């Protein structure tokens, strides 16, 4: 008989945790057609969305959704890092700060709080707005992360692939380059070409154009150019690629006759934290 590679090792205990998010990635997970097969490989000990169990004191793998927006989140993450051997973040909020990260300074945090809770209360008779609110950050700004699954929401197939890799102890393997090569692979004509044609003909007709600049120029590949294939420019949900060359990309946008401000504004939706970290770093990026 061939030796069985699955000796009866105990299944890793997995907790699914959430910080500040809209649960979109957890919903994507729960809709995963092969979820039950995936669950056979682990012991799910905590998942607020589907289980009633309380968070146990120990587990092996933490799957974390959401951005860090309070001091409580920070303390929680430090505790989780002390317990779990492996940390996997899912989604843009946990990975890049995501949409919550659009609040990117103390001033914008204060302003948002005043707009949302003009009375300073979070609800009738509720706790006062905590001074403990923080400018949103990705999980990796607080603790070491072993695997990052990007996207808004995540692709459950990619999740499964990375989870199985984590279970086998495979090193994290992040796609480093931006998306454009994948547009060639699916043979989608580039948005800058298409929009260039649209802008030229709109201008000829005296009409305004409102096309969003495509962020695939700097966004981490791995989605299969999903949006472009469906006729929408990339919105940057997978985060700025490690290999991205932001200054050169902006220069291209400018030369293509598009607005660099619009490009940057679009980029801020998912990548404000990144941009803040790198602000002032405007010279050419040769690495």
């Amino acid at each position: 008989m061939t030796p069985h590679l699955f000796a009866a090792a105990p299944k890793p205990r997995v907790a699914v945790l959430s910080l500040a998010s809209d649960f979109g990635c957890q919903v994507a997970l729960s809709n995963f057609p092969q979820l039950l097969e995936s669950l056979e490989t682990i012991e799910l000990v905590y998942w607020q969305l589907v289980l009633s169990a309380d968070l146990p004191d120990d587990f092996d793998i933490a799957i974390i959704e959401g951005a860090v927006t309070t001091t409580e989140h920070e303390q929680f993450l430090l505790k989780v890092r002390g317990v779990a051997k492996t940390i996997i973040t899912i989604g843009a909020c946990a990975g890049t700060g995501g949409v919550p990260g659009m609040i990117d300074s103390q001033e914008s945090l204060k302003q948002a709080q005043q707009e949302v809770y003009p009375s300073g209360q979070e609800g009738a008779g509720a706790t006062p707005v905590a001074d403990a609110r923080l400018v949103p950050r990705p999980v990796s700004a607080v603790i070491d992360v072993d695997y990052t699954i990007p996207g808004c929401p995540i692709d459950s197939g990619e999740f499964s692939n990375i989870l199985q890799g984590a279970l086998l102890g495979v090193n994290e393997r992040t796609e480093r380059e931006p998306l454009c090569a994948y547009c060639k692979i699916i043979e989608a004509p580039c948005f800058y070409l298409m929009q260039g044609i649209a802008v030229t003909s709109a201008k000829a007709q005296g009409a305004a154009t409102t096309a969003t600049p495509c962020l695939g120029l700097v966004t981490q590949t791995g989605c299969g150019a999903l949006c472009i294939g469906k006729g929408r420019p990339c919105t940057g949900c997978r985060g700025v690629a490690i290999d991205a060359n932001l200054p050169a990309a902006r220069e291209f946008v400018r030369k293509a006759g598009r607005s660099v401000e619009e490009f940057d504004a679009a980029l801020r939706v998912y990548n404000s934290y990144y941009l803040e970290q790198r602000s002032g770093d405007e010279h050419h990026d040769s690495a």
Partner: protein
Amino acid sequence: MIYKIISKGALADLFAGLQETYDEVVGPQERGPAFVFDKLSSVDEVRLNYPSTILPPTKYFLPADERLFRFDRSTGDVYDSEPAQGTRAILGMHPCDINAVLMMDEIFMGDYVDPYYETARKSSFIIGVSCMPEPGHLCAAFGADEIHRGFDLFLTDLGDRYFVSCRSVPASELMDSYVRSCEPSAEDINDFQERTKRFKEAFAPMPKMDQLPLLYGAKYFDEELWERIGDDCLSCGACASVCPCCYCFDVRDKVDPGGKTGMRHRIWDSCLKSEHAEVAHGHNFRPTRASRVRYRFFHKFVGNFSRTGKMLCVGCSRCGKACKVGINPGSVIEALQKEYLPDTAGVEVFKGGGAS
């Protein structure tokens, strides 16, 4: 080689013959403002006067993502390792692309035979078609504007008829069974020569290829030059994706959700990515964009040349259109030659702009 003349209308008969003989017929079609090779269900879909396609037809021999085999971790079994089956006729390949396939053949069917490539290649029937150079086409500089082998049939467009070169037994059989043709007359041959003359004269001045491999070697350590060319690179790898002569791939395993079975596959890779030259312990021997761009063209103009006597470029211009920052063989050769040969200034260099 056998030469025939067929009317333009006879293309429909040729197509019918291909459809009956091969599992699939593919050819250039419109996609928005661009063209792509895709499955043809009728002869009306094909655009034989296309300028170029986003991806080269080499994608049929080395696909962007190809299963190598499946495995079962619990038993150690390997299965589904057979190359994809089925025959295919590729209608409408330009001379540059057929030349590129001949170079790929040396790589994948030379010293080491790649069974996946070989199977796809040997089950293909290739019909070339004549073209006219578009801005940026550099085939003439690389000697890839003519093709004399590597195809089954080649159609030269003479306006109202095709001059057909028939290079293989299956091609002759197909012609005999499906297509009404006649022997070329003196006038046909004259028109063929005229057409060739027009083709050759239609090229913009080509970049100066003088001593290119040596020159490249000599300028290899000119850091300033390479930073000037390479620092703008977006590291997107689009250039390598669209190149009919680029053949790097990465091999990866994907484990299925249940954890027991999985697939090993290969996907296109490129030397423009920072990971390409990274080795154990994270050392990267091409850590900068400049060093990676320099390497790309080193491989094309020097590395492959010193091994096979051929540069790994057929001048098809796809990378020139795909690259958003204007890095392409024409612009690199121009930059190399400029200081030595100031008279090259004025050579038309296609600056790109993400047009594909």
